[in-house]
């Protein structure tokens, strides 16, 4: 059993890597790289040389190519920097050196040259995965202006009074801390880095875009590290090292060290939280509706309840999801519910009702059809006949005997319903303009936000693969008779 789970786990990791690998190769090679500037507001304002340098700088940032300006080139290879910058002295040799390394040399209108080299496919993938996992350590910060920086871990109580593992010399000040928000124990040691988002949310790490709060910042009365108090939205747990040269007056009035680059608290949840909230709520409602309905259909097989249920199931499967959502939305409008999420915003409960109900109804059909099937299959089993012979009434037989056996495959399906929630949420979130992960996918596709597409591919794939694994493990826990590792030969 342990061996099987380990094998499955390794395979799951492998599938995620394979899918992400393919996504990277497709996105980075097949989409013309000029496309990313289509919706970039800065790009249209630039002209001539500044436009060219802007383009190459962005491409370097996004990992398309390596780009060196003349200054970088001269710094790296030339003995006489100023004569090299004037295209004299050993300039020719510098250019030769770059050309030998496979770089292409181009000349700007101003006469300066720059060199670039496109990454090959193995390099693209290699660079992505080598940058993927960032482990924070006390020697992570390199700041020449602050040579006396202490480099050590220590335990000190955080802003909420609970002791936390802090670090001096790491990128993040708080390495391990406990607070009241889910999942209660937080870490900043291992971070995933999928690159930066561009052109939407330009320059911000993609994971941060979907994980940071939304709407307005939330100010609270807090005590800063140097003892002063004030009304501020700063979240002290997220503080990162800020280079001494960039520290300003405001930072010095609040902080006594260099850890002054902090994220803010927001009034509304992040895209991820919002999507999970919708997903989990709708899943609970879906099972609350579908389980009793499926049991009822099995009990009243071939009666009107069963037929009505079958009509409903066929309707849900056959009608395009988009048509169903708009249909349900129109009914919701009659009850005064908003047709777009931002109409009432995050704080109003009316914004949530309609999307949750629609998401729930969309996943009821498959649960109903399966629970009915399993219950009918079980109802001819010997133990059911025995229960009837004992004189139990139908209700007891169905609820106490059959349901317990029929629920096993349903338990297996609960985690994989999360997958349905994902694809369902893409549609629902787009229609209701809910700022969640599901809407982010088509949005980033339409904006050519390549890194964001890859990030979301990774997250959705990982989620669905591990939820399937979890479903199988859950099934063996519910029913110990089931063994995942097969014994014997089945041809």
């Amino acid at each position, binding site marked *: 059993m342990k061996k099987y789970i380990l094998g499955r786990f390794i*395979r*799951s990791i*492998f*599938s995620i890597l*394979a*899918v992400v690998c393919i*996504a990277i190769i*497709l*996105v980075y090679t*097949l*989409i013309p790289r000029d496309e990313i500037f289509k919706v970039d507001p800065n790009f249209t304002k630039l002209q001539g040389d500044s436009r060219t340098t802007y383009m190459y700088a962005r491409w370097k940032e996004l990992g398309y190519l390596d780009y060196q300006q003349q200054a970088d080139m001269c710094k790296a290879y030339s003995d006489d920097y100023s004569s090299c910058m004037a295209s004299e002295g050993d300039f020719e040799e510098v250019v030769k050196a770059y050309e030998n390394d496979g770089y292409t040399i181009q000349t700007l209108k101003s006469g300066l040259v720059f060199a670039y080299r496109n990454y090959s496919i193995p390099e693209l993938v290699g660079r992505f995965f080598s940058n993927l996992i960032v482990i924070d350590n006390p020697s992570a910060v390199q700041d020449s202006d602050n040579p006396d920086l202490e480099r050590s871990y220590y335990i000190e109580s955080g802003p909420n009074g609970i002791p936390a593992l802090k670090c001096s010399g790491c990128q993040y000040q708080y390495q391990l801390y406990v607070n009241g928000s889910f999942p209660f124990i937080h870490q900043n040691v291992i971070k995933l880095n999928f690159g930066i988002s561009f052109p939407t949310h330009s320059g911000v790490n993609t994971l941060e875009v979907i994980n940071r709060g939304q709407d307005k910042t939330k100010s609270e009365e807090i005590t800063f590290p140097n003892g002063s108090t004030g009304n501020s939205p700063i979240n002290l747990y997220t503080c990162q090292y800020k280079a001494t040269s960039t520290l300003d007056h405001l930072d010095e009035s609040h902080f006594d060290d260099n850890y002054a680059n902090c994220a803010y608290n927001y009034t509304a949840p992040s895209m991820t939280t919002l999507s999970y909230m919708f997903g989990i709520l709708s899943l609970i409602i879906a099972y609350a509706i579908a389980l009793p309905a499926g049991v009822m259909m099995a009990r009243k097989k071939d009666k009107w309840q069963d037929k009505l249920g079958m009509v409903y199931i*066929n*309707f849900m*499967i*056959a*009608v*395009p*999801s*988009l*048509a169903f959502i*708009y249909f349900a939305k129109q009914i919701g409008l009659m009850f005064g519910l908003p047709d777009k999420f931002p109409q009432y915003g995050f704080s109003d409960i009316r914004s949530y009702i309609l999307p949750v109900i629609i998401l729930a109804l969309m996943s009821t059909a498959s649960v109903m059809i399966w629970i009915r099937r399993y219950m009918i299959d079980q109802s001819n089993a010997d133990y059911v006949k025995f229960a009837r012979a004992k004189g139990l009434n139908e209700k007891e037989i169905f609820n106490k005997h059959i349901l317990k056996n029929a629920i096993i495959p349903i338990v297996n399906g609960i985690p994989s319903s999360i*997958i349905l929630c*994902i*694809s369902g949420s*893409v*549609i629902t979130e*787009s229609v209701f303009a809910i700022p969640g992960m599901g809407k982010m*996918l*088509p949005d980033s*596709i*339409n904006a050519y936000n390549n890194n964001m*597409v890859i990030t*979301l*591919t990774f997250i*959705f*794939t990982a989620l*669905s*693969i591990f939820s*399937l694994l979890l479903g199988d493990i859950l099934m063996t826990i519910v029913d110990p008779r089931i063994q995942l590792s097969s014994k014997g030969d089945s*041809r």
Partner: protein
Amino acid sequence: MEDNKFTLVGIQEGASEHIAAPHYSYWKSVFKKFFSNKIAITMLIIAGLVVAMAFIHPLISGYDPAVNPYINDRWRQFLRPSLQFLFGTDNGGRDVFSAVWYGTRASLEIAVISTAITTVLGVAVGMLWGYSKKIDSFMIEVYNIVANVPFLLVVMVLVFVLGPGKWQLIFALSCTSWLSTAYFIRVQVMIIRDREYNLASRCLGTPTYKVLLHNVLPYLISVIVTSVARDVPNFISYEVFLSYVGVGMGAQEASLGYIIQTYAPYMSSAGYLFWIPVGVSALISVSLYVVGQALADASDPRTHMN
């Protein structure tokens, strides 16, 4: 009991060859069963009408989404449905009736071609996959890696990469869904491949392709029909959704999904513009789904007994 009450009859060679069984023809029984279902016939008529309109009307109207001769005719804009314009006109003065049937044709084409590719590829690979142990051990690993990935995500990334267009969408839809059809067929083949008559065939030295084509394939017809019946409405639904979020069809092939996307902003001001294409898309998939289900039921030989 007197001997003269009996006459001697000679041995009739023919009678011993005759097997006393009612005449049975598979396809006749399928159609008999199918046409006994009233709802299925109604839906077949509706589906037939929609398909006929989608393929004939664009030929008559000569509608072309790229050309709009009425763009400057202000009087033609946003006309409500009337006898002259059955589905009204849109913001550019175009006749929505023509636009909807043009879009329906594009959507149907995508769904039908994708289903054909998916089914042919899926059945061919699935039969080999289920029959051969060697292919199975390899393919099951491929399936385990690919099947866990959300289908819609892969299609969206593929269309994003390939760009909008009919053939790109068909490619994206069929290259991601054939594997699940193949897996579905594989399970069915595994169930019947070790039946006695197949073992007998193999003992007699029948080549594998003949066993597959003559012994296994006829058994799969109802399974294949079920899978086709599920795929066509699904693909229509996917096309509508993908074009709606802007990663499906471009303006060249103004499919139903594209029409719904362009008319969505007028939902409150001119509701008919939005609801008519949505209704047509629902009508096609529901009617095709019901017809497909009835056909799948009818093609299962076990239902022919009564």
